[in-house]
């Protein structure tokens, strides 16, 4: 156990350094911007003395290193600056938009896991069969399809042609503002408020974007499950278990699957991190008011504080999920010493 804690401590110790690099990269990206942040705030036609004052206020006359120090200091105090577009502080915006992304990602990874893992196991136990080929092609297609194409197709088929699904967004206009935000996750908030109609509406709006994202991550989960399973099924302990006369299901699920479950936790954490990326495009297609849409809209409006803030938040979540994957592996796998 001590070895493992030590390994985990080493992994955790590398996080601040990586985090510092992350902040440095985002800061540098913000500073090489050709768009003058002063003009973004006061506009093209402001008198020169106003521009000079704002420039001084923003500390843009200082050396780059000092500017980075100021940026870092603000960051440590939880200040990411003000968004020009929403005129709120970026932290306030992120608090408002992030739960929507979280809700989307949680539902997507849940669906992807529940379908993807059994599918991967099925393919592995029937390696080389027709089912296996179908699963493999299905996964490759999931990895190859542009997520915005899938989203647009969903909208055309289920919303326009069949009329089964509601349109874009997170809730119908009639429910807007009726649900007191508690967790920020609309499905839970509507339940807490006891409003069943609003709950159904929230679920219906969630179905399409979550489904698209689920397929995107399921492809990876299924492929990895299949590969791990093939590996495990070739193990000698599986042959032993079979020779003892255990049922096929018991061999597959207890013996082989039990051995790969730790590695699958790692895969799930990494998939979840990948979802953050998929969310950017999905949210744009479905006008889902999450952090991804916030990022792209800020990008198009050259709202650099918002862009950097959103980038940093997504980067940190990504980093923490990667650390979680490492931790799961180090703590749970008895072979890691």
């Amino acid at each position, binding site marked *: 156990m001590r070895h493992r804690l030590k390994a985990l401590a080493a992994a955790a110790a590398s996080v601040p350094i*990586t985090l510092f*690099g992350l902040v440095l990269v985002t800061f540098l990206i913000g500073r090489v911007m050709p768009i003058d942040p002063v003009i973004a705030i006061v506009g093209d036609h402001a008198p020169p003395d106003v521009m000079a004052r704002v420039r001084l206020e923003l500390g843009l006359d200082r050396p780059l290193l000092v500017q980075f120090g100021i940026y870092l200091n603000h960051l440590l105090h939880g200040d990411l600056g003000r968004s020009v577009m929403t005129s709120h502080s970026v932290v306030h915006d992120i608090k408002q938009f992030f739960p929507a992304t979280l809700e989307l990602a949680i539902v997507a990874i849940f669906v992807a896991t529940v379908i993807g893992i059994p599918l991967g196991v099925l393919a592995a136990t029937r390696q080389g069969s027709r089912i296996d080929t179908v699963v493999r092609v299905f996964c*490759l297609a999931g990895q190859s399809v*542009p997520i915005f194409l899938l989203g647009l*197709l969903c909208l055309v088929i289920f919303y326009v042609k069949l009329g089964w699904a509601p349109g874009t967004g997170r809730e119908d206009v009639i429910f807007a503002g009726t649900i007191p935000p508690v967790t920020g996750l609309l499905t839970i908030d509507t339940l807490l408020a006891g409003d069943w109609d609003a709950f159904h509406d929230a679920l219906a709006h969630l179905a399409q974007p979550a489904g698209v994202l689920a397929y995107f991550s399921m492809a990876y989960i299924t492929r990895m499950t299949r590969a791990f399973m093939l590996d495990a099924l070739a193990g000698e302990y599986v042959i032993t278990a079979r020779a003892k006369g255990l049922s096929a299901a018991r061999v597959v699920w207890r013996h082989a699957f039990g051995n790969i479950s730790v590695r699958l936790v790692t895969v799930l954490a990494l998939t979840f*991190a990948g979802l953050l990326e998929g969310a*950017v495009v999905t949210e744009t297609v479905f006008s889902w008011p999450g952090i991804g849409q916030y990022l792209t809209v800020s*990008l198009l409006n050259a709202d650099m504080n918002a862009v950097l803030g959103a*980038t940093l938040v*997504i980067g940190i979540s990504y980093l923490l999920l990667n650390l979680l994957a490492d931790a799961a592996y180090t703590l749970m796998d008895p072979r890691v010493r």
Partner: protein
Amino acid sequence: MSTTTTLPGLRAWLLTDTPASRAQAAWGRRYRIWRDFRANGVAMTGLVTIILLIAAALAAPLLATHNPDAQELTNRLATPSAAHWLGTDELGRDVYSRLLFGGRITLGMVVAVVLMVAPVGLAVGTIAGYLGGMTDRVMMRVTDIFLAFPRLILALAFVAAIHPGISSAIFAIALTAWPPYARLARAETLTIRGTDFIAAIRLTGATTPRIILRHVAPLCLGSLIVRVTLDMSSIILTAAALGFLGMGAQPPSPEWGAMIATARDYMLQQWWVPLMPGMAIFVASLAFNLLGDGLRDVLDPKQR
């Protein structure tokens, strides 16, 4: 000499167990790989599709039925017909011709990114892995920082910082694409570094750069090629996503992602307009995935 007599002769020469020269052994190995690969129907489908796509992109001026930029405002958003095989877009431009020319941009971007990224990743990985110690730690820490960003997010921020367009999109994707190669090359190098034949080469007095360049790097190539091929699909998707989000190729460029972005407003009624470039992206990306999957089976069986 008829082909029936030369081919078995050539094949025997290639497949011999006792090659007379280094070249013969090398070509024999290549032939065996090709033979395995050819038997893999899925991978061959991918390869043939890619060759067709490249040919179509190269021969775009010959194959196109219209000028890709010619607008025909009286014939906007037309359904596919004999005159316009895949219909027309929101400015009455021929979608089929635009797709052909767009293929040049997409495939060109993929080639540009790979040419920039693969050598860098290979160099960083092999040097870090072979030298070890402080060099290794610093280089891998930098790699980790770049790995810590989701690819699309870093590319988006980077493109926004310079200037939306094809060349900055290429740089941005390259910036985010090299770390996995470095990781992979380093892992391979670590296993190669301790082998007896490297020790023997060192004893003959070979310099470190020579060992890395001539002996370590070639052995990393197999898994690197597999990784690059599989990655080409995600490069295509990232480039298209950048175009779609308005941060990559700019209209009126016929880049596939940008084509979808401009046609998006007509999606609900004229759904085939954004669908065509979408299918093109899907086919190209699927073809690279199929090829990469097949290559992995052949070149790198332990990764399956």
